[in-house]
C-alpha cells in the first residue's frame, strides 16, 4: 500500500516536470497534465493517495504555472476559482475511487462467504447420503399438487431401482411390494392423504431379478399449508431385513428351545437364587405329579424329601460358589425326589448355573431312575443267579469229569485183570494139562489167549483216546522232524526185517503239546508203516505244505491206501477200512489223532487211493480251543 501511496505522490511531481519542459506547447492551460494525474493517483493510491496528489498538484500548478509564475501570488479571481475547482475535482476523484474500492472488497467478501457455504452444503449432503446408506434409511417427498416425487438415493437402493431413472409415482410404486405388504401400506398412505395421520408400517419389498426380498419400515407424514390443506407427504424408508431376520431366527430358536424343553424325556427345572421354581417342563410335571402352574414359584424343596432338604440346599450353595458351569448327570450324587402324593422315587440330576438378565439361574435336568434301578437290581440278581448256576454247573462238570476219569481208571485196572486171568489160566491149562488135551482143544486155548490180548489192545486204545481229550495242553516248541525220525527209527528197530524208504523234511517246527503231538505222529507213522507192509518198495515221507493260508504237516505213504468214498469213516472210533486178516488193528488211532488235532484248533484231512497209498495232512493252531468246544 505504501508503494501505491508513493506512486500517487510521485505522479504530480513528474507531471509538473513534464509540463515545465513542454510549457510552451501547453501555455496557458496550467492544469493540463495535473487533472489526469490526480485521476491516476486517486485510482492507484486510493483516498489518501488521491488527496495527497490533489494537494501537491494544486501547490505545484499554483507556484509554477499560474501567473504570476514562480510565486504564490494571485492576480485574478479566475485563478483562485481554477485552484478551487481543481481541488474539488481531485477530492471527488479520491472519494469516488475509495468508494469503488470499498464496494469491490465487499463484493469479494460476499462471494467468498457464498463459496464456503456452498462447500459446506455439499459436504453435508455427502454426509447425509453416507448416513442414509449406513442406516439404510432413505427419505422421500411427494408434492401432491404437481404430483412430483423426490427420492433420496438410498430409496433407489432399497427398492433396487437404478438411481439414474426417475422416481416412481403413487400408486405405481405398488410393484415394489408384495401384495400383503402393499395392502397394509396402501391403507396407511390413504389415511395419511385424507386425514393427515402419520404412519409407520413394515412391508416386504420385491426387488427385480433374483435379488433377495427385503423388509422395510415405511413412515410418512402430511404437510399442510396455512389453510390446513394437505399439500404434500414426506417420509422415510428403512431397510430392516437384518432385524427381521434376527427376529425370525430368534423366534425360531425360542420355538425350538421350547420344543426341546417340552418334549425332553428328562425333567427340566430352572430355579432362581431364592430356590424358587421358575421353569417346569411337562416331563417334570409328569415325574412329580405337579402341574406347571402349581410348581412355578414354589420352593424347590417341595420336590425333595424332607430329610434331604438341608443337605440339598447346602450342595446347591456349594455349587453356586464353585466356578463350575455345570455338574454332570449323577455329579450331584444319587438323590430321591418326592411326588405330589408323597411317594419317593430315585432320581439322578445334573445341574448348571448361568446368569440370565443379571439374575443367577440354576438349571437342573432330572431323571427318574426308578426303572433303571429296578433293572440294575434285576441284573445284579440275575448275575448272582448266573454265577451261582455257573458254580453249580462247574461243580457238576468237575464231578462228571472226575467220574469219567475214575471210570477210565477203573477200566484200565479192572478190565485188564480178567484178561490177565483168561490169558494166565489158559496158559496154565496148556502147561499143566496140555498132554491131556486132544485135537482142537489147544487151538481153542490159543484163541482165548489171542482174544484176551486183542481185548487188552482195545483197552489200551480206549484209554489213549480218552486221555487225548482230558487234561490241559502244555504248549512247547516241538521239532516234528526230529520226532518223526525218532519214531521211524523205533519202528525200524521193532520190525528190522522190513526196509522202508524214509524221507523226513528238515526243520519242521510247531507250537503244540509235545506228548499229544507224539501220539499223533506215532499213530500216523505207525499206520504208514503198517499199511506199506505188502508193498514191494515201501516209502514214507514226512513234509510240510503251505496252502489256504495254513501250514500243513503231512505223512504220506505208498501203501494199501483207501477208497475216498469211505474217507468219512476214517476218523470214527472202531471204524476200519481193512479186514483184520489184511491189516490188524482196533480202529482207534485216527480217532485219537483227530481229537488231538481238534484240541489244537487244527484240522486234519486224508487223501488216498486204493493200492496207491495214503496221505494225512494236519494243521495246528498256536492257541488251543477251550475244552468245552470239543466234540
Amino acid at each position, binding site marked *: 500500500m505504501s508503494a501505491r501511496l508513493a506512486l500517487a505522490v510521485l505522479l504530480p511531481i513528474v507531471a509538473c516536470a513534464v509540463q515545465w519542459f513542454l510549457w510552451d506547447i501547453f501555455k496557458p492551460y496550467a492544469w493540463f497534465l495535473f487533472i489526469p494525474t490526480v485521476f491516476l493517483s486517486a485510482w492507484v493510491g486510493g483516498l489518501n493517495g488521491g488527496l495527497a496528489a490533489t494537494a501537491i498538484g494544486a501547490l505545484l500548478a499554483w507556484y509554477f504555472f499560474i501567473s504570476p509564475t514562480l510565486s504564490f501570488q494571485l492576480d485574478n479571481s479566475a485563478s483562485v476559482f481554477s485552484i478551487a475547482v481543481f481541488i474539488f475535482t481531485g477530492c471527488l476523484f479520491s472519494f469516488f475511487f475509495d468508494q469503488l474500492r470499498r464496494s469491490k472488497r465487499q463484493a469479494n467478501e460476499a462471494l467468498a462467504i457464498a463459496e464456503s457455504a456452498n462447500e459446506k452444503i455439499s459436504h453435508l449432503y455427502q454426509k447425509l447420503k453416507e448416513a442414509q446408506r449406513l442406516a439404510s434409511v432413505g427419505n422421500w417427498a411427494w408434492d401432491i399438487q404437481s404430483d412430483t416425487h423426490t427420492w433420496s438415493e438410498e430409496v433407489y437402493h432399497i427398492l433396487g431401482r437404478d438411481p439414474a431413472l426417475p422416481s416412481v409415482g403413487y400408486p405405481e410404486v405398488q410393484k415394489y411390494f408384495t401384495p400383503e405388504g402393499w395392502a397394509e401400506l396402501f391403507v396407511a398412505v390413504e389415511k395419511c392423504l385424507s386425514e393427515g395421520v402419520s404412519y409407520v408400517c413394515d412391508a416386504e419389498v420385491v426387488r427385480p431379478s433374483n435379488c433377495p426380498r427385503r423388509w422395510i419400515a415405511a413412515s410418512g407424514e402430511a404437510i399442510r399449508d396455512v389453510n390446513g390443506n394437505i399439500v404434500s407427504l414426506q417420509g422415510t424408508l428403512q431397510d430392516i431385513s437384518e432385524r427381521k431376520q434376527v427376529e425370525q431366527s430368534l423366534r425360531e430358536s425360542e420355538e425350538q428351545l421350547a420344543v426341546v424343553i417340552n418334549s425332553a424325556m428328562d425333567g427340566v427345572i430352572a430355579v432362581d437364587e431364592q430356590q424358587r421354581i421358575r421353569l417346569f417342563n411337562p416331563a417334570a410335571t409328569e415325574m412329580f405329579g405337579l402341574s406347571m402352574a402349581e410348581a412355578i414359584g414354589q420352593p424347590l424343596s417341595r420336590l425333595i424329601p424332607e430329610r434331604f432338604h438341608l443337605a440339598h440346599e447346602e450342595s446347591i450353595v456349594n455349587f453356586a460358589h464353585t466356578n463350575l458351569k455345570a455338574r454332570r448327570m449323577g455329579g450331584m450324587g444319587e438323590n430321591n425326589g418326592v411326588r405330589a402324593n408323597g411317594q419317593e422315587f430315585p432320581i439322578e440330576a445334573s445341574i448348571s448355573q448361568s446368569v440370565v438378565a443379571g439374575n443367577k439361574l440354576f438349571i437342573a435336568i432330572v431323571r427318574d431312575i426308578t426303572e433303571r434301578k429296578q433293572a440294575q437290581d434285576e441284573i445284579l440278581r440275575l448275575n448272582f443267579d448266573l454265577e451261582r448256576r455257573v458254580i453249580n454247573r462247574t461243580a457238576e462238570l468237575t464231578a462228571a469229569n472226575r467220574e469219567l476219569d475214575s471210570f477210565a*481208571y477203573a477200566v*484200565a*485196572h*479192572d478190565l*485188564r*485183570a*480178567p*484178561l*490177565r*486171568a483168561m*490169558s*494166565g*489160566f*489158559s*496158559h*496154565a491149562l496148556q502147561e499143566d494139562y496140555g498132554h491131556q488135551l486132544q485135537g482142537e482143544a489147544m487151538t481153542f486155548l490159543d484163541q482165548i*489167549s489171542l482174544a*484176551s*490180548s486183542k481185548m*487188552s489192545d482195545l483197552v*489200551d486204545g480206549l*484209554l489213549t483216546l480218552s486221555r487225548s481229550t482230558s487234561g490241559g495242553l502244555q504248549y512247547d516248541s516241538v521239532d516234528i522232524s526230529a520226532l518223526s525220525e525218532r519214531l521211524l527209527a523205533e519202528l525200524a528197530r521193532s520190525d528190522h526185517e522190513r526196509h522202508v524208504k524214509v524221507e523226513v523234511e528238515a526243520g519242521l517246527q510247531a507250537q503244540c503239546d509235545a506228548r499229544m503231538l507224539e501220539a499223533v505222529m506215532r499213530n500216523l507213522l505207525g499206520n504208514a508203516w503198517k499199511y506199506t507192509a505188502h508193498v514191494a518198495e515201501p516209502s514214507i515221507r514226512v513234509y510240510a505244505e503251505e496252502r489256504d493260508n495254513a501250514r500243513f504237516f503231512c505223512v504220506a505213504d505208498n501203501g494199501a491206501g483207501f477208497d475216498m468214498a469211505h474217507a468219512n469213516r476214517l476218523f470214527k472210533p472202531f471204524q476200519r477200512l481193512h479186514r483184520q486178516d489184511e491189516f490188524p488193528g482196533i480202529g482207534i488211532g485216527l480217532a485219537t489223532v483227530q481229537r488231538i488235532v481238534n484240541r489244537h484248533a487244527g484240522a486234519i484231512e486224508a487223501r488216498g487211493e486204493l493200492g496207491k497209498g495214503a496221505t494225512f495232512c494236519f494243521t495246528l493252531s498256536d492257541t488251543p480251543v477251550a475244552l468245552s468246544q470239543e466234540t
Partner: protein
Amino acid sequence: MISTKNILLVEDNPQDEMLTLRALRRANLANHIDVVRDGQQALDYLFREGEFIEREDLGLPAMVLLDIGLPRLSGLEVLERLRSDMRTKLLPVIILTSSDEECDRLKSYENHANSFVRKPVDFTEFAETVGRLGVYWLATNEPPPGR
C-alpha cells in the same frame, strides 16, 4: 544165594494172586510168600498190629509187591504210610499194578517206590516179569542194612 526172607504180596484180586504165586513158584520163590488182601491188612501185617498182632517177629520182608487198586487203603496210601514210618522207610516196595496212569507212576516214585511194574496181560510175559522181579530183589539186590 536166595534170601530166606519173605515176600509180601498185597493183592485183592484172587486170580491175579494165583497167577502171581504161580509165576513166583516157577521162579522157585513160592515158599517165601505171604499174601494180604487189602491196604489196611498190609499195614497191620508189617507193623504187627490188628489181626497180625500175634505174628512172629521175623523182621521185615525182603520186598513188598504192592497193587494200587486195593480195598480200604489204596496201594499208594500204604506206600505213603510206609515211607513216613521210620521202621519201613527203607523197605523195598515194588508197585505191581494194572495201571499205566502217569499220575500213579509219578506218585509212586514221589513216595520213593523202589520200582513201578505194570502187569502184562499176556501170561508168558507176566510170569517172566514177576519171576525176574523176585530173583532181582531177593537174590541180586543188596537189602538196606538192618537196624
